[in-house]
């Protein structure tokens, strides 16, 4: 049975699709995995969110945008609750979301928690989002935001970003 609260929750989740990652504007906060849940209670709406990286400065912007979006749709008394567990992982990203990233020019993350993170071990090859060559090299482990690394494609001689798998 679909209750009024369930329907309300679905409606709110729908509205929150409008909130994008400010650094990766093709992904919504839900696709990114940062939006975990919406709780509808008698007192109001609680949006449950989890940070990508511990110090990600975009989190504040995303929280503010969530509240502003709900206010625009006339939802009073909305608040954000931050949870740390389960820890955010790029494995939550759907294939559809990964395809959006690739189309935007950002190589999507591979499988998280792979052996790649063992010190001094070779990594799995990363495919260039432009020409699909796997003849690519890591230029910088860290990129313009906490969630990305910078790579270079030897095939099409194009630098590109990789969404880090964690």
């Amino acid at each position: 049975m679909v209750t009024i609260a369930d329907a309300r929750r679905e409606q709110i989740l729908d509205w929150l699709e409008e909130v994008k990652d400010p650094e990766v504007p093709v992904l919504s906060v839900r696709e990114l995995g940062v939006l975990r849940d919406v709780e509808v209670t008698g007192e109001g709406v609680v949006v449950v969110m989890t940070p990508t990286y511990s110090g990600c400065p975009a989190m504040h912007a995303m929280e503010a945008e969530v509240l502003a979006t709900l206010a625009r749709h006339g939802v009073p008394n909305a608040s954000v609750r931050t949870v740390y567990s389960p820890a955010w992982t790029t494995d939550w990203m759907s294939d559809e979301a990964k395809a959006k990233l690739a189309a935007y020019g950002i190589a999507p993350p591979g499988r998280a928690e792979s052996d790649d993170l063992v010190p001094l071990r070779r990594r799995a090859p990363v495919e260039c989002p432009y020409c699909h060559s796997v003849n690519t090299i890591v230029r910088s482990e860290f990129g313009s935001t906490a969630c990305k690394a910078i790579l270079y494609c030897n095939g099409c001689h194009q630098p590109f970003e990789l969404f880090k798998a964690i």
Partner: protein
Amino acid sequence: MTSGKRETGDGKREEAGIGEPGTGNPAPDNGWVPGARPATATSGVAENSFFEYLLRLADDRLVLGHRLSEWCGHAPILEEDIALANIALDLIGQASMLLKLAGEVEGKGRTEDALAYFRDAIEFRNVQLVELPNGDFAVTIVRQFLFDAWDVLVLERLMGASNKTLAGIAAKALKEAKYHLRHTAEWVRMLGDGTAESHARAQRALDDLWPYAAELFLADEIDAQAVASGSGVDAEALRDRWRQTVDRVLSEATLVVPKDGFAPRGGRIGRHTEHLGRMLADMQSLARAHPGATW
């Protein structure tokens, strides 16, 4: 020190109890209270040992994160400038979560900002390793590598902490720490197995920093109580696995593992090198010049 003149963040409840009248102004939201004295004991024996334990975890990250941030705009290459700033951001973010939890555990109304910006050096509980000046790039990388190799072991265990918030923070931080370790291990190899100049600098950094790493594995009654409550790590038990990682990377880097000898200690109970006070003077200046300020 005259406590009446101290501008250290403290609890609102504490203020009335210790017989030091405040200024009569309402306390700003960050928990800063004019004229309040620090609640943290400097003897190492605190009334709230879990609070102390959380400060140790948090202060390692806060101080190391700030040290790394000093490289911003000064690193040898742009990619490393970005990398060091990113690692700094992760560590400061972790410190922020841990200090928030510490403030809740303490129960005196201190926020993460009050704990970060309104404690003096003697109240910090980080190991001395992380407060040392950055030196050259080799010193920064070797220090970070020695810390990261320890950090992943600590966080792996804290993921199972009985305190669920701490367990959640650890699970999150572990992902970041593994990424840091991969990066710094590769740099240690590149520097050690690089040119004669980079090798000499990396070896010198290792020789200088090695004695300080020993403090990471010291434990006292604060640690023991945290372990007993199910929310701590037996630091001494981490040494063997830490040595496995460190030895393997140093061997690939053609660096010689220094001999164990005299090892400075005391950071965990507030005894620090002269460097921490100077670092904090810089780190805390804005918050102390404008107490209660927010973005």
